[in-house]
């Protein structure tokens, strides 16, 4: 399947929408953690399944083990959001979130899911509001903790050949915590989004 790349305007619009959505995610995170959150410039790539791992590894830059949570989003756009958090940062979560109870492995997982859900929810809501597109999202599920990134993204298990990848990352000032949020949309949603972006641009 041949996927036409987005036009300059379409990419610009998507970048801006991602930027706005990330701002809301950052604000949500800052409210929960009570720390200032540093935001990245969103990165947009059209990736093939073959170079997926290389692209994401380069973005995440992780030689160390990571924890990862996935969540589906659906309705006018369908895709999956994956939140990747370096393990050393994940270990800081309980402290950052003022978790006072005893932190066993279930509690750690729960915190991871909560943070991922907060980021994904804010991003999806942000995109949905800005583009006036109906979007919902599923409950988060844990993909892995303490594993190398390659184990999160296994190309042989993916059913698409091309995907649109939107990446943003958020850091907490003065802490190790850093999370990467990866939004993947496969073939048919790439076209659906193209249409939604065109409408959005035309309305301006």
């Amino acid at each position: 399947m041949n996927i036409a790349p987005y036009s300059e305007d379409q990419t610009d619009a998507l970048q801006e929408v991602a930027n706005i959505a990330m701002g809301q995610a950052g604000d949500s995170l800052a409210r929960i953690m009570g720390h200032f959150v540093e935001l990245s410039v969103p990165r947009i790539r059209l990736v093939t399944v073959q170079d997926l791992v290389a692209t994401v590894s380069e973005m995440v830059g992780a030689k160390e083990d990571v924890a990862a949570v996935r969540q589906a989003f659906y309705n006018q756009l369908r895709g999956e959001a994956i939140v990747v958090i370096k393990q050393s940062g994940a270990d800081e979560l309980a402290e950052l979130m003022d978790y006072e109870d005893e932190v066993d492995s279930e509690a750690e997982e729960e915190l991871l899911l909560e943070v991922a859900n907060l980021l994904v929810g804010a991003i999806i809501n942000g995109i949905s509001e800005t583009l006036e597109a109906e979007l919902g999202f599923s409950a988060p599920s844990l993909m892995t903790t303490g594993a190398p990134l390659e184990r999160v993204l296994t190309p042989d298990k993916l059913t698409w050949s091309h995907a649109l990848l939107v990446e943003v990352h958020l850091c907490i000032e003065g802490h190790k915590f850093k999370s990467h949020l990866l939004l993947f949309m496969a073939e048919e949603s790439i076209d659906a989004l193209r249409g939604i972006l065109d409408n959005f641009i035309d309305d301006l």
Partner: protein
Amino acid sequence: MADTPQLLDFIVDRTHAGIFVVDRDMRIVLWNQFMEVHSGRKRDELLDQDLFDAFPELPRKWLTRKINNVFILKNFSFTSWEQRPYLFKFPHNRPVTGGVDCMRQDCTLMPVKNDAGEVEYVCFTLFDVTDTSIYQMQLEDLTKQLRDASNRDGLTGLHNRRFIEETLASEFARAQRHDHALSLIITDIDHFKRVNDEHGHLAGDEVLRRVAQRLNDGLRISDHLGRYGGEEFLVVLPETPLEGAETLCERLRQAIAEEPIPLGDGALPVSISLGISQFRPGVRNYEQLIEEADQALYRAKETGRNRYTIFQPPSAA
């Protein structure tokens, strides 16, 4: 035509999921039939009551935070049985076949906004996932059994070569990292080929099984034993200096030699030879440790069998 609002009320009330709603003050404003049936508490007594007054057993601090986050962030939130088995301790529908103590639950917390876009209520949907959780636990058990089986040698029931090598590799890494002692024993049944030739392969298998059993019985709790090849076994001894390895070798040697192995009507005297190697700075990898233990085993064979020898590193001088 059904009256639509009435229809919706009916569905919310009777659907096979728990639905309840709380306001900003944690007061219960909706409590459907599923919640009534499973909690045994009627909505008439619960409406307008504080959720935590009505159910003091709820994890108050955690749940308050969770609910408040929905109000603040205007975002859906979720809980899963995998991290938190249940919110309310409800009986489940598998009292006989269950194997779990109470209903496993997944919950969704939905923000309910007013016209101004502010969250006025949080609506809980509570799903009974007891069946799913039981299947999942059965699957995990099975996976564990399979994993365990794939790590074992079929004949002797000991760890197989792959697994014992993995164990050695990780113990080697640990010894290296923390500068701990680590000993390795390779042992092999003396004249095993003769057993096979003279008594047949079935007898040979029986001898292997018995020897494996006796070796296993002779180990300390922290030692790892595996079948390395045909009649060869590997013992990994974490945090064990040479003296400990020698003591163990002698014990294992005696355990085999002192009593012939019962075979059909009679019994067959069997002995083993053993070689010991030691982790020390400068040993490159675990393969070198195996190689050195193998050399020591060879010397034990050469010098008369039914004994152990220790690998002597070439002296630095």
